[in-house]
């Protein structure tokens, strides 16, 4: 259950085409993450899958059935919204049970299912509270609980963690990952945060302006980005993209090298520069190197033990086997 196929799906708002024809298959049980900058059409795509937004053309299949004209409630998909979208006048119990009540399930069965879900989400103590009396993380869990009880064919998440603080976000990320492990249900997760995408996904779909730039596993995207956009978007800190004469040396319009793939030396190397800002994370230090003549700024990751001062002269050598080459259109040269 939960194979979703999009066939030349498009979406326009008036004259503005937000999603040009797009094909995509999400396999059963997959954790797919749509990632891309804000406004690239991730939410629109998700809402089209959910049925909240009509397609301008194309079709959507869920489990082999054409679902393009099927009303949202009948698609068997559950969605978790960024704002949680809890029903403010209902207790947590009523919120979680609402979809079951709408499906006219017997009250005893509703209670049983709600309590099972609440137990698995650590919500037993809060069942009689109203959403307003819960913390952000608890609200998020209620929203997830409301999705779980429906036993949907697939879960849709629209930036579910972006209203949480950083610490909570890491925790919830794990919880959602565990949920997927446990249920093995298809999940589609939308985020603009590539760290979330890298940590959670089986399959990442990178979007730019409604166009799929690349689909693949996190490591595929990391090691073999198909173009400069994906190369710059995936990985933190960002890949250094260098064009000009240095790139020509490698027969490319642009070369890319990740900060963690540059060797640093105080005495010798291919590129010479001086240290600008140094970001100390403890385990690692990110150095911004200027004045190398290669590129305005190159970011390098070095071990946190090495001490460098601002203004120090430094030599950089890219690891040639980790170098990415791109042509004038920005496409990867194999």
């Amino acid at each position, binding site marked *: 259950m939960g194979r979703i196929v999009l066939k030349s799906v498009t979406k326009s708002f008036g004259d503005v085409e937000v999603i040009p024809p797009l094909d995509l298959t999400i396999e059963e049980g997959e954790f797919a993450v749509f990632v891309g900058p804000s406004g690239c059409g991730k939410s629109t795509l998700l809402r089209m899958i959910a049925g*909240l937004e009509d397609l301008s053309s194309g079709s959507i299949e869920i489990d082999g059935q054409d679902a393009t004209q099927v009303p949202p409630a009948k698609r068997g998909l*559950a969605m978790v919204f960024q704002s949680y979208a809890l*029903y403010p006048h209902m207790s947590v119990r009523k919120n979680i049970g609402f979809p079951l009540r709408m499906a006219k399930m017997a009250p005893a069965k509703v209670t049983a299912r709600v309590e099972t879900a609440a137990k698995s989400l650590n919500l037993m103590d809060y069942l009689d509270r109203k959403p307003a009396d819960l913390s952000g993380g608890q609200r998020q869990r209620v929203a997830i609980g409301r999705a779980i009880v429906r036993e949907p064919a697939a879960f849709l998440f629209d930036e579910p963690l972006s209203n949480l603080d950083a610490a909570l976000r890491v925790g919830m990320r794990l919880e959602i990952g565990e949920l997927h492990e446990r249920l093995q249900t298809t999940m589609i997760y939308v985020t603009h945060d590539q760290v979330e995408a890298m940590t959670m996904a089986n399959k990442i779909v990178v979007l730019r302006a409604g166009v799929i730039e690349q689909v693949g596993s996190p490591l595929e995207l990391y090691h073999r980005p198909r173009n400069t956009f994906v190369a710059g978007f995936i990985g933190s800190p960002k890949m250094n993209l260098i064009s000009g004469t240095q790139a020509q040396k490698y027969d490319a319009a642009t070369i890319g090298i990740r900060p963690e793939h540059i060797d640093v030396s105080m005495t010798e190397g291919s590129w010479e520069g001086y240290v600008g800002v140094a970001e100390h994370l403890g385990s690692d230090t990110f150095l911004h190197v200027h004045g190398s003549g290669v590129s305005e700024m190159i970011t390098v990751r070095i071990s946190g033990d090495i001490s460098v001062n601002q203004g120090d002269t430094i030599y950089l050598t890219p690891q040639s086997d980790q170098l990415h080459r791109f042509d004038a259109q920005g496409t990867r040269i194999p």
Partner: protein
Amino acid sequence: MSDRKLPRLLQSPAVLLLLVWMLIPLGMTLYFSFIRYVLNSLRRPEWTSPSLSNWRGFGNYEFVLNSKDFLFAIQNSLFIVCSILFLTVILGVLIAVLINKSFPGQGIVRVLLISPFFVMPAVNAVLWINMILDPVLGLQGIAVANLNDLAAALRDAPVIGWFFALWPQLEPISFRATQTSAYAVIIMVTWQWTPFAVLIFMTSLQSEDQQQKEAAVLDGASSWSQFRFLTLPHLGRPIAIVVMIQAIFHLSLYAEIEIVSRGNGNKNLPYLIGEFANNNIGAASATGIFAVILANIVAIFLLRMVGKTLME
């Protein structure tokens, strides 16, 4: 001077003014309600000026309580207020939900809907009772007469004639009559105040969270369930506010009652006060005190209700 005294001191003129504003009329009313005080009396000219020597104790209250109109006026006050509240809230919610959807000509429709609220109450009453509800010259009379004519004409028609032959002769309703004048007042005030309710409900509807609606759609809620479980609870607070404001306004209805039937068969407490005040200020004041008590009971009751919704 401590931190607290200065703000208190600065507030005091306003508080004093409000106290004086409230206490002087209330005190005078109380005073008049315990003495014999009339505007004209040939027999007892000493009653025509207020004085403690005319002390009557609870005599005025007794007189008012025993007057045949008093209980009726209280009942009628409550009947009119409750009916108006009931109708305006129901109509207000329905209309607000209806025009909250986007449709062509939305702006004009909204302005037209609000406009009754800007008509003066007396003008409203005159228009309704003379031009709409009048059994002969008003729209009602014309409509009834035309319906009767139409039925009479169709009675002889082939095939469908038998159906119209079953119709009785329709009688127009005289809204100035004893039995119906309260209904006239309810109709015209409802017409005037429904826009107020619509306005408040509409602003509230526009602040309704759309994602909650979408979540409900995905959860399989029908339009009715969305209205019942999301929109209606969302409107709880504005409904409470509309009820409270209107209750306080409509307890003191006067112009409409005067214009429709001059209180014939349809009095409320303010109207009764007006009648007594034609001559007997003492009785009018006692009635006024009763009105204050009634208003307070209603207000406490409503404040509880509103308070509860606001707490949620």
